[in-house]
């Protein structure tokens, strides 16, 4: 009879989905285009005299790079996320996927981890900057490491946000715009100007709540070399929240 080994755990099939999705970034031009745009924009923002002033500052620090990463990611990560479900639903492969012995959780997380790994790979390609910093002087490796970890966690949150919108629509452009908009909102609530405004209108308590919900704030903490438990919990909980919402949304929309 059939030569299959039936297993029926919650995460059955996640590996296969992950593998397919991760390879998928490199089997279409999209992955390469993303990497080039990411490296060129982040590099330019870091080195530019108007923005990062990396060369002018002549400091052995990646601060100029980390400062602009949230803004680069806010555009680029939704571009990675937009196709994850919208395309499956548009081409009808979602019907194939969900009639395989793969749970919704497994395929959702498989895709998330694939996108996240791709983003991690892109971040890794910014290593020449680290090498440059090392040449300039004696950098604080702890700060660089927590900074990169912050970038990775931030990318995870943006990806989870983008995936929710990809699950909600069959149109990739709509998914991209909504994903970017939502990411921008959660980024700017943490900017000092916004927090000040919130404090003025809604009081100090609201300001504190918003500050604690702000990705920018937690990210800035990490780029200063501080690895606070609160920040880690924030990033993991926030990502998990978006992922769970995405799964619930997909369960309703997959057949629509």
């Amino acid at each position, binding site marked *: *009879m*059939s*030569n*299959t*080994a*039936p*297993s*029926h755990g919650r995460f*059955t*099939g996640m*590996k*296969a*989905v992950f*593998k*397919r999705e991760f*390879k*998928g970034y490199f*089997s*279409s031009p999209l992955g390469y285009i993303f990497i080039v745009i990411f490296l060129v924009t982040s590099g330019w923002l870091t080195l530019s005299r108007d923005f990062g002033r990396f060369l002018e500052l002549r400091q052995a620090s990646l601060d100029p790079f980390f400062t602009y990463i949230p803004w680069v990611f806010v555009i680029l990560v939704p571009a990675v996320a937009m196709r994850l479900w919208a395309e499956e639903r548009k*081409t*009808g*492969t979602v*019907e*194939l996927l*969900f*009639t*395989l*012995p*793969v*749970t919704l959780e497994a395929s959702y997380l498989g895709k998330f981890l694939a996108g996240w790994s791709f983003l991690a790979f892109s971040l890794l390609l910014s290593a020449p900057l680290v090498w440059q910093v090392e040449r300039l002087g004696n950098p604080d490796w702890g700060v660089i490491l927590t900074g990169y970890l912050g970038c990775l966690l931030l990318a995870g949150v943006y990806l989870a946000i983008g995936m929710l919108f990809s699950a909600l629509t069959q149109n990739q452009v709509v998914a991209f715009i909504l994903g970017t908009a939502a990411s921008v909102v959660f980024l700017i609530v943490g900017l000092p100007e916004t927090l000040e405004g919130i404090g003025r209108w809604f009081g100090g308590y609201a300001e504190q709540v918003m500050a604690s919900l702000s990705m920018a704030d937690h990210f800035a903490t990490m780029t200063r070399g501080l690895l606070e438990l609160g920040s880690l919990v924030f990033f993991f909980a926030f990502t998990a929240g978006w992922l769970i919402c995405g799964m619930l949304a997909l369960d309703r929309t*997959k*057949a629509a």
Partner: protein
Amino acid sequence: MTETTDEAFVDDPPASSAGGTAKPVAPLAEALVEVQGLSKHYGPIRAVDGISFTVRRGDILGFLGPNGAGKTTAMRLITGFLTPDAGTVRVAGHDIATESLLARHKVGYLPENAPAYGEMTVTGFLEFIAEARGVTEVDPAIRKVVAMTGLERVQHQMIETLSKGFKRRVGLAQALIHDPEVLILDEPTDGLDPNQKAMVQELISNLSRNKCIILSTHILDEVERICNRALIISQGKILVDSTPQELMTQAPNHNVVRLSLESPNPQLARTLAAQAWCKRFDELTPTSFEVFPVDGENRLAEILALAKDVPLSAVHLDEGRLDELFRHITEGVSR
């Protein structure tokens, strides 16, 4: 067991009497798909409305119905892609709702239009499906289905570059990769050219021995050729559950004889029209007649005996066409 709403077809004799090329249904074959009271509503629209049927090992069941009859929805319910509003589906003994993953292991499914990941190669795609299905020996399984579906020549090509026929075969290959007991094929030959159709039909016929196959189609000829059972559904309900051969005997033109004469012969026309078994006699032209026998019985021998001294240029015995019956049944419902 089966729900039929059209009285005319409920009391028909069993398939064996119809003869022809019907594949015999083993009476004790194991039930692989059991559908009970299955319903799915979209707002006020009853896409599937309380259907019940059982399909056994060795069966090829043809799902017939006009577009929008509920064929695709029924298949999506059986494969577990959709959740029913009421009713149950058991696949190889596993309930698709409560033992979904076990049931899905037993099913190979070709969705409508054979969706596939276009940016993958044929083998890359089959590898993904095999891994997701937990196939233990992936490479031999891929080689086997590639050979079965004739994909050798294109196996390293990207799926989006393939023709419609090859894409359909890729869809069939992925449905077969784990050698499932139950195969569910939504319009497997839709949009294929006649050669590709014949190839797919032959493949399906050869597969049926130890599997149970449910296929939907609106090509009646296909049902006649490869299915041993036909369900006609319309507006979400099963109207007919029968064998294709038996269905043909119900067709309005079953066993109608068309005679073409060398020269006009009013004498013969009168004699034929006067026979007790002649339900209707149509004189198409002075030299060609159509004789409709009572109860669709075969009266060819009698007709030829009566016309033995008349020079004939052609004689045609109509087996009955499913499409006429199909129109007859489904139009009655939609009006």
